[in-house]
């Protein structure tokens, strides 16, 4: 088995694992970690595609490699934003699960004028 | 002085991949200048004169002690009986608080059997030791003497 195929399969497994975590963990931060696993699995798959496309003296197809770099940076930005949201939610509600029902205390709050 | 050092560091980063060009050097100078500026901002130079002889001796001792430290740990870990007697020890350090003391802490953390865990209210450095039966305090004192000497001698006593 070539290294590209091996890590491609690895990426597929990571996607599965991450999805499982995304479904089964109620905590937002755990979901975020799981999302990062899915993301790295997807990027690994992209990396396998890049590796398979090695040609013209390049160790891999540079186009997917560049896309992965873009993706990694975007994923980091997403993680940072989500972490800030989680921390704010923890401050405001004292919990970080995503159950829709409990924080229903907003019912009576007046709307922001706009 | 520091600038030259950083420029040297740049040179070694720019491994001669295809021969240095003038642009390479220019960027290197710029980078070194930036690094020096940052360094001076973060860590203002003190009134110390480096004593090269003492510094060399310090380096030699440091290298040697690193090896001893590694061997020491390896010996203890590989020994099936695991001969250690861990514990804490407070060492009344003479170097005043600041970067120099931090340097001393970093240095001694790589020495055999010692690991600084922080200061105590009396201004001493507290060490965690792998084996309290060893002559730790005297060894630390030698390190300190050498470091003080390398940094220009008595200016640092408290």
């Amino acid at each position, binding site marked *: 088995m070539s290294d590209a195929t091996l890590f491609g399969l690895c990426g597929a497994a990571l996607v599965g694992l991450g999805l499982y975590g995304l479904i089964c963990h109620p905590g937002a931060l755990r979901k975020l970690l799981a999302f990062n696993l899915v993301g790295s699995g997807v990027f690994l798959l992209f990396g396998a595609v890049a590796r398979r496309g090695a040609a013209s003296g390049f160790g891999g197809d540079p186009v997917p490699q560049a896309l992965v770099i873009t993706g990694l940076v975007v994923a980091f930005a997403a993680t940072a934003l989500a972490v800030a949201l989680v921390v704010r939610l923890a401050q405001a509600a004292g919990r970080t699960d995503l159950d829709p029902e409990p924080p229903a205390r907003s019912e009576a709050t007046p709307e922001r004028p706009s | 002085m520091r600038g030259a050092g950083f420029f*040297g*560091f740049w*040179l*070694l*980063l720019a*491994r*001669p991949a295809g021969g240095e060009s003038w642009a390479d050097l220019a960027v290197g100078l710029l980078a070194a200048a930036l690094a020096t500026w940052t360094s001076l901002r973060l860590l203002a130079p003190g009134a110390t004169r480096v004593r090269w002889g003492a510094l060399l001796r310090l380096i030699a001792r440091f290298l040697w002690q*690193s*090896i001893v*430290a*590694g*061997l*020491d*740990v*390896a010996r*203890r*870990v*590989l020994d099936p009986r*695991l001969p*250690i007697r*861990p*514990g*804490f*020890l*407070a*060492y*009344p350090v003479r170097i005043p608080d600041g970067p120099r003391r931090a340097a001393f*802490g*970093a*240095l001694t*953390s*790589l020495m*055999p*059997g010692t*690991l*600084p*865990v*922080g200061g*105590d*209210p009396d201004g001493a450095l*507290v060490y*965690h030791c*792998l084996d*309290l*039966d060893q*002559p*730790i*305090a*005297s060894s*630390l004192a030698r390190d300190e003497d050498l470091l003080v000497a390398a940094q220009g001698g008595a200016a640092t006593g408290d």
Partner: protein
Amino acid sequence: MSAVEISTVFTVFAVSLGSLFFLAGTLGLLRLPDTLTRLHALTKADNLGLGLIVLGLLPQVSSPLGWIGLIAVWLLALLAGATVGQLLAGALRPSDGTPPDRGGGSA
């Protein structure tokens, strides 16, 4: 023995020894009884291991600039290792503060 052979032998020796120190570090991490002692094993054995590997690699690098590069990695690793060791040790220090053995040490 030619210079090449000597350098080869040297590299093999130093790198092997360095790898063994990594093994020692790992064993320490696994065998030692508490976190602080494990920290000792980690900082000391690993840094020596890395140092030896760097030393062993020096003859294989043609340019002197490459040498300094390798050594720079080692020095930075030393700095990081020393800092991390102290930070973690400080964090792990028992909260009651002062150690039992005050003053002069146990020499």
